[in-house]
């Protein structure tokens, strides 16, 4: 682990020459940072402070509720971590088991209490929609749990079984809710969370007012970021690139792989339309020096009739129904 820490520090020091902007968010994610340990996270944060200009940063750590302790959160809090994201996936035991999660709702409740004790109240939980065995009833159970927990942020992801995942091979033996049901679950979730004060701000993300993930908003506003670690992606000075996936080679000699240009108008719009705020003419102009093509607004008006999109003088944004078809709609608007 210490050789990994060394490699990360090395990279951070090396990359600083390329980073001109101030840093306002840090995110420890991708896997189980809690396994990395609080001390090491503190070391990395310190290293960033030494090398970069930090401005009241939002510092998030993803963690697994079953592997946390009082001590663990104390170190985090001292290191400056002010946001915790925990994977829950479901509040129903049987569903959680099918997803391979072991920690139960009691552990989550315990973790939340510990976090409060150490002054971290910006907490995010996630749930999955469309998991094997899930019904509207069981979904409501999960939502009830989320609403009753003292948290600020929720991510709700529709399960997609992709090639290469363990589910892929056995999908025929799983009792998966059909697409119609999953779509209903999604719209139902959006509605219930809104009623409880968690407003949708992105396809899969919901937050109490002011607690949107600042870090993730950077992605969707097509802003630049630096990622360090095996297969961590960056968008820096107009270029997208990522570190090689191999863990060992990251330790010995980390190198990056080119992933094309970033920040095109199309990319910007594609990402903006994931957000509830949508595409804003003025913001677009600030960024690109001109207004977006009017045809996008014309095409959007056509879709507005079907309740998929909302169009104002200034913005185009997708409705929850539109988010469900967002791949098609974004493709259509950008055609």
């Amino acid at each position, binding site marked *: 682990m210490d050789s990994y820490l060394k490699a990360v520090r090395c990279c951070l020091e090396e990359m600083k020459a390329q980073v001109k902007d101030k840093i306002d968010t840090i995110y420890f994610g991708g896997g189980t940072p809690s396994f990395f340990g609080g001390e090491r996270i503190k070391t990395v944060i310190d290293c960033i402070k030494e090398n970069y200009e930090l401005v009241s940063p939002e510092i998030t750590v993803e963690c697994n509720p079953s592997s946390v302790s009082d001590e663990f959160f104390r170190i985090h809090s001292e290191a400056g971590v002010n946001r915790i994201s925990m994977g829950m996936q479901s509040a129903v035991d049987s569903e959680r088991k099918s997803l391979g999660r072991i920690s139960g709702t009691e552990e989550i409740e315990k973790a939340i209490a510990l976090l409060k004790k150490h002054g971290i109240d910006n907490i995010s939980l996630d749930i999955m929609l469309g998991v094997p065995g899930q019904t509207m009833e069981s979904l409501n159970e999960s939502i009830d749990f989320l609403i009753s927990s003292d948290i600020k942020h929720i991510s709700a992801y529709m399960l997609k079984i992709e090639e290469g995942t363990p589910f892929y091979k056995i999908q025929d033996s799983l009792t998966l809710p059909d697409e119609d049901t999953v779509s209903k679950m999604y719209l139902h979730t959006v509605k219930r969370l809104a009623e409880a004060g968690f407003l949708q701000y992105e396809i899969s993300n919901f937050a109490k007012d002011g607690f949107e993930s600042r870090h993730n908003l950077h992605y969707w506003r097509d802003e630049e970021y630096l990622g360090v670690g095996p297969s961590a992606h960056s968008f820096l000075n107009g270029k997208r690139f990522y570190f090689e996936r191999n863990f060992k080679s990251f330790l010995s000699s980390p190198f990056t792989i080119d992933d094309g240009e*970033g920040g095109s108008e199309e990319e910007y719009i594609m990402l903006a339309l994931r957000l509830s705020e949508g595409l804003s003419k003025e913001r677009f102009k600030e960024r690109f020096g001109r207004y977006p093509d009017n045809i996008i607004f014309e095409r959007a008006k056509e879709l507005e009739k079907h309740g998929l999109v909302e169009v104002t003088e200034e913005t185009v944004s997708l409705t929850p129904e539109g988010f469900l078809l967002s791949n098609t709609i974004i493709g259509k608007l950008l055609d």
Partner: protein
Amino acid sequence: MNKKKENIRNFSIIAHIDHGKSTLADRLLELTNSVAKRDMSQQILDDMDLERERGITIKAHAVKLDYKAKDGETYELNLIDTPGHVDFNYEVSRSLAACEGAVLIIDASQGIEAQTLANTYLALDHDLELVPVINKIDLPAAEPDRVAAEVEDIIGLDCSLAPRVSAKTGENIEQVLERIVADIPAPKEANDNAPLKALIFDSVYDNYKGVIVYVRVVEGTLKAGETMLMMATGAQFNVVEVGYMRATGLEPTDVLSAGEVGYITASIKTVRDAKVGDTVTKIQNQAKEPLPGYRKVNPMVFCGVYPADGADYEALRDALEKLQLNDASLSYEPETSGALGFGFRCGFLGLLHLEIIQERLEREYNLDLVTTVPSVVYYIHQTDGTVVQVDNPTHYPEQAVIDYCEEPITNAHIYSPAEYVGAIMELCQERRGVFKDMKYITTDRVDIHYELPLNEIIYDFFDALKSRTRGYASFDYEIFEYRRSTLQKVDVLLNGDIIDALSFIIHSEKAMGRARKIAEKLKEHIPRQMFEIPIQVAIGSKVIARETVKAMRKDVLAKCYGGDITRKKKLLEKQKEGKKRMRQFGTVEVPQEAFMAVLKLDGDN
């Protein structure tokens, strides 16, 4: 060179498709040393890729062979290969008119088929001497005795001397040449001193020489430098070159004389100035009467041809122009469709001709095409007494101004093993056929004669016939009259908008059935979209069939964080690629396959 007219033999080879016409022609070329064996790619005469693949001849070809016969004399054999399909009947008849005889090939296992008879009758109409040849004796299923008896019974040709050959292995081919020399007469009344009369039986466009006109000189002579006159079109040209067609290429000569087959070049720009069937004469010493039998060929089947990618419009126009240089029977004019954009309304001799042109456009010119439902030419009698010819549903008049309509009717003959009679009659009944007659050709083969409307044939009749008779039936038809009929124009609406490219004209009794099938097919082929899409099929404002394409439920990438952005961009690109194969109608996207599927409605039977 001393030309002995009594040693000239002008003949063609006629056969049903796949009975081995081109292979036999190849063997004749080989045996007369007209082409070195090592240069023989199979089937020299069919020089278009498409012809070779489909095993049919589209254009007529001619070649001059020298044969030293067993009697010690050297003969000049002019082989005129004929197009092998009913769509090209007129061209066949002109090729036959250029001959004194024909080699009739019959497959030793299949026996007499539809086109064997059709071509035989054509040949007999032209008073040709027939030389029967029984081919494919190398096949295990060959029954030359039975087939010979069939030919004697049905056609009444003496087969006692008929060569039994294998064009594939070359067995007994020399016998064919001997029978040609012995049985086919030399040109009759071939008078060099009479005014020139030469029959055009084909013409091809050549980039360097312009149009090469293939002729049979009936009377008179023609030399380079003389001025020739096309008697039907009135066009005049200065002859640049005359000569013979050899298997290896053109062979110029000083003079073409009576009885001979050869070519003329005269800087002619388009094949339309050298129409098949026209008579060539000279300005000096002009013939009084043209040779009989010329007629203007009119397209019978029409359809819209559109580039899949609108940017290819110019390329499509160039390609059609080039094809027309060589194919006077292809017609085209620009048309615009609300659904398909800019394209052309093309006229064809028949369905095969349509398919051939479509395939050539796609293969030789690399064009991706969308075609509309083919239509025949209807005569619409209007209440004001005028008659309009309609080959495009878009131009169909309002029902209110129509007095009555007429549609083309064909005489159709289907030849089949007797066991399929039931299936064939059922099919013909479904296609509004009127039964005329049924003859047993042999104890187990029948000739079923129906009157069938042409517009029932152009909707995949061939495919349906083949699938219902396991490919054993053969089919031949000829338009013989226009007959009063109750027709209706049917429109297809997607999301409330008429898709003009899918409109069609149909007999009123069949409208409902076809409407339902079309609605079902479209439902099957139009992918779910962002909202529900009603499919309606309507006559005027009356909807007679409807289906609904349900709305897509879910198409979303739930997670899109730092590492997912490039992937999402690629997804977007892929989506755009897929869209290129779609046609946009208002807010509805229709894949090109949907158009094709509507054309092949009965393929499921």
